[in-house]
């Protein structure tokens, strides 16, 4: 198919300083957990986006010196000549596809705890980090300023040698140049503090020096946060940023405009729960209005129509994507070919970001199971080899995210016939009802994408409204049987805090409810006062609290943990979720573990209590968000009751299970598990993942390996 002419503008080249970018698709700097010390993973990951049509791909934050060491989190590094070698691989591989490649030069100040280098970071003023515990910087004197500016210049020269076309002087997410620009961080009284001109001085001088060093060969990019949303002390668009643009516009080749500081950077990397696509266009357009240079900006752009609108309305010149480029590295190519329904749209669940926040593991993606696996498992998001055992028929039981992904990939791998059999009347599993929780509508894209793909695959047949017994599955006629029956919420209060059930917790009682009873079965939550017991710590408890509070209930949340929704701190959803629940009057009770549930009350004790004290909370209903359990009944009956010998006698060569039928897990892991089995369905033992390449240093020694 051909590109819709209304999207043509996205494919017009644009000049960025000395470089020409072939189109308007720009992969913004974002972390992936590879840095410069997993150079092959890094290079293959970025090059996949270049192959998919991106006009430019940039590193994650790229440290210029050991003083900016974010360990335990993983950044790229241009500390020495060895780092040049490692990152040059990324440059070469991205260049092969005709894309530009950029390095985001970064000095973190107090937000980089230097746990590997054991250096002391420097900052405009000595104030401990608002992001990292117990990290104090050294206040910079003028020698320090010149020295750090020298680090930028040296790193920029290394970047040029490595082959980078675009060199950043990165000043958002509260890193050093933004610290100088912002009174919240900069309390100086010398010529580097006070007036805007003074607060801008460090950044302006640094840009001048970097441009002087490499500006003939490399485009100079400036990433600038234009609002910290904390009022007077924070970075402000009109007071700080627009005058700064006017001051340095002549030195800058491209502006990369975003918002936020580091401690609430979910305002930048917006979860779909709170923000739609393009939510920072007003800030980006304001910079565009005063700059003569190209302006690019993120906005979780999935829709080519919205991209075109952002450019045609004069708000942006270049569409920068982070998460949509992870969910679908081939987004530009699919728009170019008019294959819009093949786009895996980012759902804004922020599991990618959660890995960086946790501190270092490679990124994951709920939509794209191949993200991060390009090198280490050799997976390509759009290419699927025909399976060696393609002439087998496969039965997949359960069309939740794992079953859908597995059936889709098996279909793309050319299995003769794949039957995806589902007890409900449509695909989706728990992702049919989870997106009905407040704010989670975009999560339904997990289902929609796969439904469309499965519908296109002639060798995959979806069979709804059919609940298979073990006998049915045995006699179904498949050579390979895959069980993907998901999980369910415990009905008896079983939880990971006490490793036990809660006396009196019983979802068959009218005042005890599970999430499914509320969301799927539509059961009435009796009375006005509801206690939600949450020992899950992710979205379910707080989402139900929001829903029930919006329906007029008086909601109290209770957890044995020290704080609520710990995982939503990693996904950057927690701050706004707290604001939301606070405004709805939801009461939050921490460190309390229910000891028994009775009609009308929950009795609980403090988890650190040693004297047997108990407290009572009166309530009309209790919602149990305590733990999930795999729905493994079908799998167990096939494996344990019928047995592999009897299955083999029916012609079944393999019985496997995937996703939450194995164990409850994050959505990204559910999809990965389904994908992984399908990718390796022709391996020697598909049940066990094949080893992946580990980028590590191996000592040169010889052993007789018996």
């Amino acid at each position: 198919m051909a590109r819709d002419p209304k999207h043509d503008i996205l494919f017009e080249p644009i000049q960025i300083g000395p470089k020409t970018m072939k189109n308007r698709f720009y992969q913004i700097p974002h972390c992936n957990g590879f840095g410069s010390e997993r150079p092959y993973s890094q290079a293959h990951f970025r090059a996949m986006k270049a192959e998919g049509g991106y006009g430019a791909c940039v590193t994650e934050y790229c440290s210029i010196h050991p003083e900016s060491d974010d360990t335990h989190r993983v950044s790229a590094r241009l500390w020495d000549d060895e780092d040049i070698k490692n990152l040059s691989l990324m440059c070469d591989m991205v260049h092969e596809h005709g894309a530009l490649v950029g390095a985001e030069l970064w000095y973190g100040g107090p937000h980089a705890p230097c746990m590997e280098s054991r250096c002391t970071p420097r900052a405009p003023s000595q104030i401990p980090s608002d992001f990292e515990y117990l990290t104090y910087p050294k206040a910079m004197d003028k020698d320090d300023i010149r020295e750090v500016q020298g680090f930028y210049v040296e790193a920029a020269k290394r970047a040029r040698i490595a082959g980078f076309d675009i060199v950043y002087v990165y000043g958002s997410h509260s890193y050093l140049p933004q610290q100088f620009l912002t009174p919240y961080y900069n309390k100086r009284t010398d010529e580097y503090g006070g007036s805007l001109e003074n607060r801008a001085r460090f950044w302006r001088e640094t840009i001048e020096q970097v441009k002087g060093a490499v500006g003939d060969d490399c485009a100079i990019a400036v990433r600038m946060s234009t609002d910290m949303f904390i009022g007077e002390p924070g970075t402000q668009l009109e007071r700080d940023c627009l005058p700064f643009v006017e001051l340095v516009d002549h030195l800058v080749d491209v502006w990369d405009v975003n918002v936020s500081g580091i401690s609430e950077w979910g305002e930048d990397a917006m979860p779909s729960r709170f923000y739609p696509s393009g939510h920072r266009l007003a800030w980006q357009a304001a910079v565009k209005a005063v700059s003569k240079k190209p302006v690019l900006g993120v906005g979780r752009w999935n829709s080519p129509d919205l991209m075109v609108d952002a450019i045609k309305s004069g708000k942006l010149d270049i569409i920068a994507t982070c998460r949509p480029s992870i969910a679908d590295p081939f987004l530009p190519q699919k728009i170019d070919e008019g294959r819009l329904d093949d786009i895996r749209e980012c759902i804004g669940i922020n599991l990618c970001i959660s890995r960086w926040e946790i501190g270092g593991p490679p990124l994951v993606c709920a939509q794209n199971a191949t993200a991060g696996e390009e090198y280490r498992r050799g997976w390509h998001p759009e290419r699927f080899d025909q399976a060696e055992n393609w002439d087998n028929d496969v039965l997949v039981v359960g069309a939740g995210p794992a079953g859908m992904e597995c059936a889709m990939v098996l279909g793309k791998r050319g299995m003769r016939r794949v039957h995806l059999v589902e007890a409900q009347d449509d695909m989706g599993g728990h992702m049919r009802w989870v997106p009905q929780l407040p704010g989670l509508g975009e999560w339904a894209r997990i289902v929609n994408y796969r439904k469309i793909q499965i519908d296109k695959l002639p060798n995959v047949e979806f069979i709804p409204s059919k609940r298979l017994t073990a006998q049915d599955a045995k006699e179904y006629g498949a050579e390979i049987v895959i069980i993907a029956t998901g999980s369910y919420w415990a009905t008896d209060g079983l939880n990971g805090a006490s490793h036990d059930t809660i006396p009196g917790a019983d979802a068959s009682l009218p005042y005890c409810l599970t999430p499914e009873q509320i969301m799927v079965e539509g059961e009435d939550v009796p009375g006005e006062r509801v206690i939600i017991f949450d020992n899950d710590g992710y979205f379910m408890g707080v989402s139900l609290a929001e829903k029930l509070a919006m329906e007029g209930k008086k909601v109290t949340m209770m957890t044995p943990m020290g704080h609520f929704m710990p995982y939503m701190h990693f996904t950057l959803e927690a701050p706004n979720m707290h604001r939301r629940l606070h405004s709805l009057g939801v009461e939050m009770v921490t460190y309390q573990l229910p000891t028994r549930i009775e009609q009308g009350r929950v009795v609980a004790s403090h988890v650190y209590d040693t004297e047997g004290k108990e407290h009572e909370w009166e309530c009309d209903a209790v919602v149990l968000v305590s733990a999930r359990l795999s729905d493994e009944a079908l799998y167990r009956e096939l494996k344990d009751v019928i047995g592999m010998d009897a299955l083999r006698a029916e012609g079944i060569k393999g019985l496997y299970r995937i996703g939450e039928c194995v164990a409850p897990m994050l959505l990204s892991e559910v999809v990965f598990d389904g994908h992984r089995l399908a990718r390796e369905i022709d391996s020697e033992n598909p049940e066990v993942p094949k080893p992946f390449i580990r980028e590590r240093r191996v000592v040169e020694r010889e052993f007789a390996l018996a």
Partner: protein
Amino acid sequence: MRIVVAVKQVGALGDEVEFTDDERDVAPEYLEFALNEWDSYATEEALRIRERLGEGEVVVVTAGDEEAEQALRRCLAMGADRATRVWSDALAGADPITVARALAAPVRVEEPDLVLAGVQSSDSIQSATGTALAELLELPRVAVVTKVDYDHAARRATVHRELEGGLVDVVEVATPALLTIQTGINEPRYATLRAIKQAEQKEIQVVDPDDLGEPPDRVRRMFVPPRGEGAEMLDGSPAEIAQRIAEIVRESLKA
């Protein structure tokens, strides 16, 4: 007891369409082929009648080339007992009357108690083959059937016909008769992989058609109709387009 079901392998359009060089049909590479949806309901209804009676035979018949055996095998996988395919090159792109002429002999030879067909095919949507077949077989015919109550001993059937506006016409018909079956009459069963594999092993009887006579009509040209003048294409940003749509709606509400 024997029921014959006349079925068709239909082509469904994908995102793009190109026509054959003679411009009389869609080029086959732009079509995805499957059993006509109405025919899956007709087959299911036949299977249910056989199961209710506890005896009998369901025979599926199609006019089509070798590719069309895919549709027959789907019916066999659902549970049909036998399948017959009638074909000659003269049937390529044939009109419904000619197809009915081709089907008449192989259906007649089965001496059926009931003949079922879909109301229409999803590709050419003429709703004519079943009716023409009834005429050729000199059978009574009931169209757009949504319920069948077949009394084999009495050799009659009480059937519901779907009319406009939700009305139902209850008809008693002497059998043998031909019924054209509407979607929604039942829920067609899915074939298990085992049934599909077994259906692959079954032999399909292939017969030549009797004299087909002169075709009463033929397709002269197939084309994408030019865009009419009634449509106004709106250009601009989503916000501008939404604004313009709101204006148009407001204007037409005033008018």
